[in-house]
């Protein structure tokens, strides 16, 4: 049984791919377009969490369409040069088929270029990778598939990825779909398996089909029957399930010692547990007394964490965890409401959603800090609020932001809370250009109003000069 089941049972045809009928039909349509000549979107992005069949679909597609394959993944050194030399060259001229036969594009042998783990293209080793991918997407003569877990991250770095690709979302298969797929394997391998076992394996994998297959292979090693006891040796794969268990132990079990013990089992950093407990605390402790006591315990826990950071003394970690689990559990006086569902930390989602805004803000604060000889934090707390207010009323100052502070057009628009093509921004861009004629009236608030009078007829043009 040397063969890896995740490879052995990798779908051979597109139809064999588990779940995701929409994704499958989308990609087939795109592939059909290719056989009629290059479609408008020459590249497709398959996005979704690990182990749900993205790579399998790409490989199955190539074999089904009779295309050759040029494959790269994160383990390759993916510098711009490497991508260009392999993918772009491969796509523009010749390559080998998967059996080693030399194929010529002019003979009609089309090749699918697959960039696996395309979202891992950052850092030093992959310098230049993103521009190369953008170039590839635009210029390829061959179908290209990018496979990503985190589409947002890559699309932020490359507008070509964002705008010039066909985006196909992969959903996690449900536990019953996964269990069904496992059933196919056990039947094929001649293993008798209890339904409950397959179901447990499927649920444990949390939608990761590959993980489920791998677990199945490891629990059934050397056996021809699987019963309920056999899954016990698996460690749980998903942290999320564990975190929900921990939340239950902390908030509803009414047993501080058990809450503390549950924290040992999750094997997560205290700061992560802190986020979870914090998120759920007000929803669980709706009684004011419980809330105040719970928050106080969280506060004490956080002080221990602060001392750990400052003194690099990790011995205090356990006190922090004790306070946020046993301490919070003990804070409850009222009885729990078991109807609510536990929540994933919204702070993490807010932070990831606000990433681009925060970056923009940081850049603005850096520029203002340099100009005003002060720190970012002082800009944020002291300067930003009043500056925003003045900018709303003062055209001259808007122009000065571009001319003197060196803000980009988008950054000024951000401060004004408008779009880059708003009249205020356009006029500021125009005014920021070096004056050609006489500059009348210096200073004064009246100037702002005067300057607004001439309508920006040439506003359009000056925008392009940026």
């Amino acid at each position: 049984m040397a063969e890896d089941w995740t490879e052995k049972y990798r779908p051979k045809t597109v139809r064999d791919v588990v779940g995701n009928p929409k994704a499958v039909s989308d990609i087939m349509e795109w592939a059909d377009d290719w056989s009629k000549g290059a479609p408008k979107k020459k590249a497709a992005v398959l996005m979704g969490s690990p182990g749900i069949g993205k790579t399998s679909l790409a490989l199955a597609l190539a074999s089904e369409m009779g295309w050759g394959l040029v494959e790269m993944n994160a383990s390759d050194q993916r510098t711009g040069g490497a991508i260009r030399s392999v993918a772009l060259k491969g796509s523009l001229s010749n390559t080998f088929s998967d059996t080693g036969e030399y194929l010529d594009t002019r003979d009609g042998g089309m090749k699918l270029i697959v960039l696996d783990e395309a979202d891992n293209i950052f850092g030093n080793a992959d310098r230049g990778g993103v521009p190369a991918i953008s170039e590839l997407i635009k210029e390829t003569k061959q179908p290209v598939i990018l496979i990503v877990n985190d589409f947002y991250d890559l699309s932020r770095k490359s507008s070509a990825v964002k705008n010039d690709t066909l985006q196909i979302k992969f959903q996690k298969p449900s536990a019953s779909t996964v269990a069904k797929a496992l059933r196919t394997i056990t039947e094929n391998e001649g293993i008798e398996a209890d339904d409950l076992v397959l179901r447990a394996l499927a649920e444990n994998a949390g939608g990761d089909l590959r993980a489920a297959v791998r677990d199945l292979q490891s629990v059934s090693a050397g056996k021809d029957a699987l019963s309920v006891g056999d899954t016990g040796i698996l460690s749980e794969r998903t942290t999320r399930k564990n975190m929900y268990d921990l939340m239950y132990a902390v908030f509803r079990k009414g047993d501080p010692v058990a809450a503390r013990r549950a924290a040992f089992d999750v094997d997560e950093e205290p700061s992560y547990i802190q986020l979870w407990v914090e998120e759920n605390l007000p929803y669980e402790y709706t009684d004011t007394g419980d809330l105040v006591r719970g928050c106080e315990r969280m506060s004490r826990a956080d002080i221990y964490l602060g001392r750990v950071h400052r003194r690099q003394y990790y011995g205090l970690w356990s006190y922090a965890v004790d306070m946020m689990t046993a301490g919070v559990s003990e804070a409850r006086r009222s009885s729990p409401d078991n109807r609510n569902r536990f929540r994933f930390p919204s702070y993490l989602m807010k932070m990831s959603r606000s990433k681009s805004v925060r970056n923009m803000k940081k850049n603005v604060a850096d520029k203002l800090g340099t100009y005003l000889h002060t720190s970012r934090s002082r800009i944020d707390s002291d300067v930003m609020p009043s500056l925003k207010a003045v900018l709303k009323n003062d055209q001259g100052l808007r122009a000065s932001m571009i001319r003197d502070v060196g803000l980009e057009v988008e950054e000024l628009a951000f401060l004004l809370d408008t779009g880059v093509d708003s009249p205020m921004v356009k006029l500021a861009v125009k005014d920021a250009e070096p004056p050609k004629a006489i500059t009348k009236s210096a200073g004064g608030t009246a100037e702002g109003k005067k300057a607004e009078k001439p309508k920006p007829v040439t506003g359009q043009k000056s925008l392009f000069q940026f």
Partner: protein
Amino acid sequence: MNEIWTERYRPKALSEVVGQKHVTERLEAYVKMKNMPHLLFTGPAGTGKTTCALALAKELYSDSWKGNFMELNASDERGIDVVRGKIKEFARTSPLGGAGFKIIFMDEADALTTDAQAALRRTMEKYSRICRFVLSCNYASKIIDPIQSRCAIFRFRPLTQDDVKGFLERIIAAESVKITPDAVDGLVHVARGDMRRAVNSLQVAASMGKMIDMDTIYQSVGIANPEEVMNMLETAISGNFVSARNMLDEIMIGYGLSGQDIIKQIHNSFFDLAISDGDKVRLMDKTGEIEFRIIEGSNERIQLEALLAYLVMVGGNNR
């Protein structure tokens, strides 16, 4: 042609600096000698520390000041290694225009941890032949003794009301701002000796484009203290913890305010809350404790949430 007034009216020469004669006279002596020790500027915000450092450099080096002067902000730089890297880079080339040394101005030096300050001390020593350091901070007590003992210490005094008023009046004349006399006094009062705040508030008020009176001043000061903080406190007092917490996230993530900034604003605003005086006093104590815990802890939000929960309780007592 408008600019940010705090920059436009920043004094260019030491003699123009307001209210710090005891400092500027000694600095002018250094200019005359063309030599100086390391300096430590201490004093509240908006009293002229950065302005003096810039003016000192301009007078020492005249046209070549930019090449001989480097600004670092301790609270912006990520770690002492970055600071040391920049210093090393700057100190590699000899001073321009025949000057004997370069100046490194490190603002908010009290943001450095004790360990980082110790590392900075060694760096200061290493480059002292080529560079003089000017450190700036709010409290000298936050600077480790070995650094203090190597620096000439300059204490910047809080500006008097007359100092602030005189300076504002110069701007009012230059920009032909229309303002009532009591509004000028109001501006001076709310600035509490911080010239930057006074000038910022004046510019906000002036941008509203009418005769500035006390109402305009209140409005412009309100802008500088975002009402979001007040809204958050009131929401907590009304008993809605989850909404108050969402507002807190908005202030911290959206406005980018630090926990310490927020707690300072809370401290300034809870006298306006509709709670009993006894609760206000207890709240003062609690707020102080929370600020201490913010410094001592690792996650500012957790600490501020504890304060919000406390407010929910106080609100319950007052309903």
